[in-house]
């Protein structure tokens, strides 16, 4: 009998990121394999602490056991608080929890402070919601070892890792090793593109960078490049079409990708699919599950621009080394594919 599956996702209206792409890809791949599938999203917006609880409660009150006379056999939940939904056959493919109350707490990326009673209570309650509603799932998968480790640390729950293939998987291909380091993504603070700009200020070779994407940090990046005197070698491309992104990967010398404690990071897999080495930072989270220093790319301390500059110079001077690292990277991610993901999620 054909199985009916509902994918649930909490969504920030007008924002499309990795989680939305993952849900779209998953729905398409399930459909391709004959499942009857649909996605359900509720908006996620929490101007006040209590709105986090309200969002979780909203999901809790949604009945997804059946719809329009059709029984829903399985629910696949993705991220906080969509996994609060109730279903006898709830499977979680965890993209991320509310990171502000876990790994980001105490960093500059979270404004939750333990010394504020209201914050402390919110943290407790969100963690309690996670323990209860993730704990009741029939199976928990995560999109990376990093996410699985956080879940273990934060909630004492074990999970199996299922790496999602990037969208447009199959489009990426190797090409010439040009004179630029490519970087792509939303230009926000967590992605730390400024580390690349700072490194360029210390390179000896004329290596340059091309950064694709838009976001709140766009202007600050441009200003920083001006201030460091590297504006001529920092190209902010803005929004770039998918096909052009593929070409930018193909022609790159290497790919820079050093977000702070990334959950997973499609960019790593895309770079390796294109046979490019990845330069990252030692605190970049899920990226480090694939980038091994000196084997598939370079891992630099996040606060050592000279060190990163030296690695960029090395790759610029030795294109064969770059090619070898990239090829090793491609082998590292060769096992990532939808067949395995779908089999696990529907098993």
């Amino acid at each position, binding site marked *: 009998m054909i199985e009916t599956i509902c994918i649930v996702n909490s969504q920030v209206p007008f924002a499309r990121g990795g989680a939305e792409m993952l849900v779209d890809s998953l729905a398409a791949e399930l459909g391709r394999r004959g499942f009857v599938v649909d996605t359900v999203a509720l908006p996620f917006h929490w101007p006040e602490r209590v709105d986090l*609880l309200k969002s979780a409660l909203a999901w809790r009150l949604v009945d997804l056991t059946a719809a329009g006379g059709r029984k829903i056999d399985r629910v696949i939940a993705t991220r906080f608080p969509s996994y609060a939904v109730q279903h006898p056959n709830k499977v979680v493919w965890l993209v991320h929890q509310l990171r502000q109350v876990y790994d980001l707490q105490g960093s500059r990326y979270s404004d939750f402070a333990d010394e504020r009673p209201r914050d402390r209570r919110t943290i407790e309650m969100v963690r309690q919601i996670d323990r209860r509603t993730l704990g009741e799932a029939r199976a928990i998968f995560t999109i990376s070892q990093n996410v699985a480790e956080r879940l273990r640390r934060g909630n004492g729950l074990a999970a199996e890792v299922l790496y999602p293939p990037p969208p447009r998987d199959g489009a990426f291909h190797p090409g010439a090793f040009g004179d630029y380091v490519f970087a792509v993504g939303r230009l926000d603070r967590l992605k730390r593109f400024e580390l690349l700009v700072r490194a360029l200020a210390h390179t000896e070779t004329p290596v340059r960078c091309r950064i694709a994407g838009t976001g709140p940090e766009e202007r600050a990046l441009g200003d920083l490049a001006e201030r460091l005197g590297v504006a001529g070698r920092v190209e902010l491309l803005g929004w770039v079409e998918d096909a052009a992104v593929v070409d930018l990967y193909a022609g790159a010398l290497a790919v820079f990708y050093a977000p702070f404690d990334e959950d997973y990071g499609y960019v790593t897999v895309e770079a390796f699919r294109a046979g490019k080495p990845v330069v990252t930072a030692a605190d970049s989270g899920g990226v480090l599950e694939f980038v091994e220093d000196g084997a598939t790319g370079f891992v630099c301390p996040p606060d050592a621009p000279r060190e990163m500059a030296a690695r960029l110079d090395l790759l610029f001077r030795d294109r064969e080394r770059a090619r070898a690292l990239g090829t090793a990277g491609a082998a590292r991610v060769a096992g990532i594919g939808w067949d395995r993901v779908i089999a696990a999620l529907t098993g």
Partner: protein
Amino acid sequence: MRLAWYSPLPPQRSGIADYSAELLPALAREAPDLAIELVVDDGVRPAPALAARFPVHGARALPGLLAAGRFDLVLYHLGNNRDFHAGIYRALLEHPGVVVLHEVVLHHLVRDVTLYAGDPDAYARELAYAYGRTGEALARRALATGVPLEPWSAPLFERVVDRSLGVIVHNDYVRRRVLASRPLSRLAVVPHHLDLGGSLGEASPPDREAARDAQGLPAGAFVVASFGFFTAAKRPEILLRAFARLRRERPEAVLVLAGEVSPHYDFARVFTPDLRAGVTITGRLELPDFLRWMAACDIAVNLRHPTAGETSGTLIRLLGMGRPVIVSRAGAFAEIPDGACAKVDVDDSEEELLLAYLLRLAADPGLRRAMGENARAYVAAHHTLAGSARAYAAFLRDTVAAKPEPFDARPPLLPYPEDDLLTDLAREVTTELVDLGAGEADDDLLRAVAEGIAGLGL
């Protein structure tokens, strides 16, 4: 105490202006410690009798006078007519003081100074302030559809009360209505006074026979009368039908509608030819004529539903003149003691009961006299000008002594610890449920929500 008195005043044509003009001299007499100065809308020149006795300021001068410490307190008289109260309303919001809430439904006034002044968002904000999201939703729907809101269900007195240092109302009905929304209000009930002494310059009320002669009534006529400005809320339809039936048994009965019919009221639909026999509609009357009709009638009928909680000055006057009166058992009217008037329920029996009272009273002059005497005694005891003045003075003195601050009494009234997010959640979810129309009886829904919260592990 230095008191600013901001009110419409004669020659402005308003019941509240007359009320103020009657009360001011009495207050000055009863409470010599009050140094009263008048504040009026700019351009208004109070009647010479008042202007000679009290200093007068235009409203524009009020902020400067307050800043200079000229007054200990401002007293604001609020009613619904924008021509007389828009400025008072704005001044109160700016400079909190004691407010006399002449009626509890201020919706018309608030709508006039927001929506009809071209600011629909302000109208929605006022409804949201008073009634939360439900209020805002009501406003948005009214704005979108063009169907006006029913003012009685959204009286909009809340901000006025929140911005006041004390509230004076005329009856217990309004007191209870205000306290239901704002339980911590400083509030005093000062019954609407009756001034038979003639501070408006009227002669003492004419006697019955002279009045009947003056109005050209036949000697044996049995006169039923209703007074005021006729809208649907005065229930002329009920009165006309009951009267037509009365007349079948008492052909000498006549009905006088003493006053003007509202141009917004489709009276022609009600006043069908079969109901016209013996009925006179006077149209707008000057006060002496109005009083003559009061003196001339055998029974006065003063029905009212729905009610904005106002105490009817006309009704108090009728009672004070010793007229037997039939009223609706609604709002403030229900507070008049049973022996002093007859009360008609506002339900299916309204017309039958009214007819029964009319027949009974028509047949029994002794009963009419007794009711009238009770009414006169009641008003003499509870609605004197001096009594009003003393009650005002006491409340104003208390207010100054208490040094109250405006108090935003919007819920929640009970503070709870800031880290009690579960109460936050319960409160917000409850608000949503109430907005959706849920109540205590909706066990299944409430259970589902409770289970949802429990299911989150909270």
